[in-house]
């Protein structure tokens, strides 16, 4: 956008170069705000660093926030600037300049926005595939899975509770989730009736539980402590009550715990159907 013509000798003062002024303000604001946002907000962004996947999401959110800040500032500062400087005087009936467009600005805008969003798409893809789904449910046959040993844990969702089965420990089914720290967990999420969603907030895991579907998510907890589990897909009247606390313990504590569970639930394990990736309860048509 161009400035108004310079005034003739001795005429009224020239109008300020709005483009330069606005551009300067925006540039300064972005240069100050973006690092501030990254440094101050980045470390405290949810979901936290309790697992590799959660930490990855925090990084992604920080990058997205860093890219969004200048865009946000561009439009907000522009709105403020135009509200302050481009006004109709009180009771006036002046007309503005009849500018219908500017090919250069439009082309620049198209190129810049295209580059921005394409780079975000690439970044998202790299992070999604590089992080083996980043904690999200990746279906029954994920495209990428982490190398090395994985502990399979099945999350069975039903109206209105989650239970957890450990196939490598005799298929014992427990009412609470305990995971060993530092090991890659392969979660198999399935449902017995309607659609639920297993959301382990601090671990950065969310995988929908569909009947007859095995939805796999990978997570490697890195911090000890407890994490919130909530159902994230409306599943009926007690959907809001479908929450629990999971725990991440040391591998040794985990071994102790799982053996204790096997002993406690041995009678139940005997009558339960054997472990399988999906279950078909009967009657099939109406659950709950």
């Amino acid at each position, binding site marked *: 956008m161009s400035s108004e013509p310079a005034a003739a000798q001795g005429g009224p003062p020239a109008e300020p170069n709005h483009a330069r002024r606005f551009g300067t303000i925006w540039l300064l604001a972005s240069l100050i705000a973006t690092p501030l946002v990254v440094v101050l907000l980045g470390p405290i962004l949810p979901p936290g660093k309790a697992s590799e996947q959660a930490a990855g999401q925090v990084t992604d959110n920080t990058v997205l926030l860093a890219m969004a800040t200048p865009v946000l500032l561009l439009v907000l500062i522009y709105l403020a600037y135009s509200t302050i400087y481009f*006004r109709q005087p009180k009771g006036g009936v002046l*007309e503005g300049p009849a500018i219908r467009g500017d090919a250069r600005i439009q082309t620049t805008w198209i190129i810049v926005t295209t580059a921005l969003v394409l780079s975000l798409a690439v970044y998202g893809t790299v992070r999604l595939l590089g992080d083996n789904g980043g904690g999200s449910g990746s*279906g029954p046959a994920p495209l990428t899975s982490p190398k090395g040993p994985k502990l399979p844990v099945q999350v069975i969702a039903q109206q209105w509770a989650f239970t957890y089965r450990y196939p490598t420990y005799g298929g014992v089914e427990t009412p609470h989730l305990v995971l060993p720290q530092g090991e890659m967990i392969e979660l198999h999420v399935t449902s017995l009736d309607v659609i639920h969603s297993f959301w382990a907030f601090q671990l950065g895991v969310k995988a929908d539980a569909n009947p007859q579907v095995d*939805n796999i998510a990978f997570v490697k907890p890195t911090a000890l402590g407890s994490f*919130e589990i909530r159902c994230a897909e409306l599943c009926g009247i007690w959907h809001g009550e479908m929450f629990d606390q999971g725990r991440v313990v040391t591998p040794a504590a985990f071994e102790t715990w799982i053996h204790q569970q096997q002993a406690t639930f041995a009678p139940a394990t005997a009558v339960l159907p054997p472990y399988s990736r999906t279950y078909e309860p009967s009657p099939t048509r109406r659950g709950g």
Partner: protein
Amino acid sequence: MNTTTAAANTQPTRPLWRRLIGFNLLTAVLLGVGGYYLGWFIGHQIKGTSFAYEKKSSESDVALLLAYFFGVIGFLIGLGFANYPLSRLLGRPASLREKESEGWSRYFGLCTDHKVVGMQYLIGIGLFFFIGGLNAMLIRVELLHSTPTVVGPNQYLSLVGMHGTMMMGMMTSGVLGPFANYFVPLMIGARRMAFPRIEALTFWLLMAAGFILVSTIFFGGFPTGWTGYEPLNDQAVMGMDSYIMFFALVGISMTLLGLNMMATIITMRAPGLTWSRLPIFVWSVFATSVLMVLAAPMLVATLLMAALDRTINTSFFISGGGGSSYLFENLFWFFGHPEVYILALPGFGIVLELLPVFTRKPLWGYRLAISGMLGVSLLSFFVWQHHLFVSGINADLRPFYMLSTEIISIPTGFIFLCVMGTLWKARTSFTVPMLFCLAWTFNFLIGGLSGVFLSDAPSDTTTHGSFFSMAHFHYTIMGGLIFAFFAAIYYWIPKMTGVRFNERLAKWHFWLMFLAFNSTFMPLFVVGMEGQPRRVSEYAPNLHGLNTWVSISAFVLGVSMLIFLVNTVYSLVFVRAAAEQNPWRSKSIEWQIPHPVPVNNFEQIPVFDSDPYDYGVPVTAIGGAQPASAGA
């Protein structure tokens, strides 16, 4: 009573009881109730092995669906919609107009005057908008506490579902219904819509649908929210059938509305009105209509499948019988994503249409705006699986959907550039419609940027199904469409009614609404990021403070709506101060017609020679300034 035209009306006034007999709303209600009981009766007579369980319980989905179906048929017959099809069946000639010569009662029945249909839509949609808003207030009352305190879980979910469903179903026609119906024929220089009777039908279908949705409370409500996911849908009690019937009727209404709009815009433009001179609002209506015609039938088909699953035990969505819950999610969101663009596009159109009037400049980047809208329309069919990133559906295709979702923000960005370009060096008067347009820009910016977070699959892992996505779509749909809706109301009511709003109350409405809206939904981004799922009445205690703040802000938002209602009643019913013919000094053609708009819109069909953005002083300068004719 309509005194000025009664004299012109040469029909002798019949006694009231005579006038009540005939094809009108009273007959419609009576036949509707009759049809309801007929359907109920038939439903209970149907025998078959599949229905054995239904007979044992008092639940009968077949009976309720048939009752609704026959009720709607009876309602439409009572209004007189069957008369024309029957007369055509008998070979009587085609006709266009019906009941346009009656007085005020034509607002309460089938009337083919597009201006009457526009007013009907405004009142009808307004009514259901406030019902949906009331549901929202009740939701926020419940969420004042972190444990269920006020209503039971079933009622809470029904409130949530009714709020969402009512809003999504009604506000898709929220701009096209009132404003496109009233103004598109005026803006294109036509005397009528292409299919006036169908236009009236879309309105009454919507009213029947709204009534059916509200009736869900008598049948136990529905627990699925507005998305109606299977198999919970299949499991649900009879109230679910109200949802299915509502959305099916809305889908039919939307398809017909879009079809009518497109036919009108394509075929009925006045001489000289080429596509490149069309007002941008009409373009946005066109882009929206494309989506309505193509996406809404998919919704109808999906809901019919759901109804079949619930009644005659087909197995579309029940995995035990060979179906799949994934099928529903895919089909629903194939409609659902274009649906949200049906909501967003008219907002774009209104803001871009109003900005030139209040900035006294032509619309900047007219062709860019059009390509933005059409680009959004086209791309909206390719992004739907971004609602399903964590579902396990087609996980390998997620990079594609991330890409397509990111790409759709490019044409959306065009709209912002056009807004900013029109504001450049403008002479802005901050009237109430202009304030709403500026608020739209702010709100949709936040909504759009939060969408960028949601479109990134790893980031979406935490935010999907949480209040973050709730805040995102409220910013885009409410902050976007509803603010534009109010801008349109304040802008066009002087034309539609000849009366002006009270300026002070209007400004109070705006400021309270804008501040309360942001105060309500901005913290919800945090609430979602902190782990609160959607549609729950029990949440983590540490989020109690934020939720309380949000609820109180929501009540203030409700108060701002009350101010609007008070202003409406006060200004339009009591004060009735006459508005000037063109209070905004707009150059658009609808403002050049006197109020009240003549019965056939124009004395003579106008001939157009330019677009309606002939504002501003031509810029002639040295040093690279653009001359006025440099189009974009």
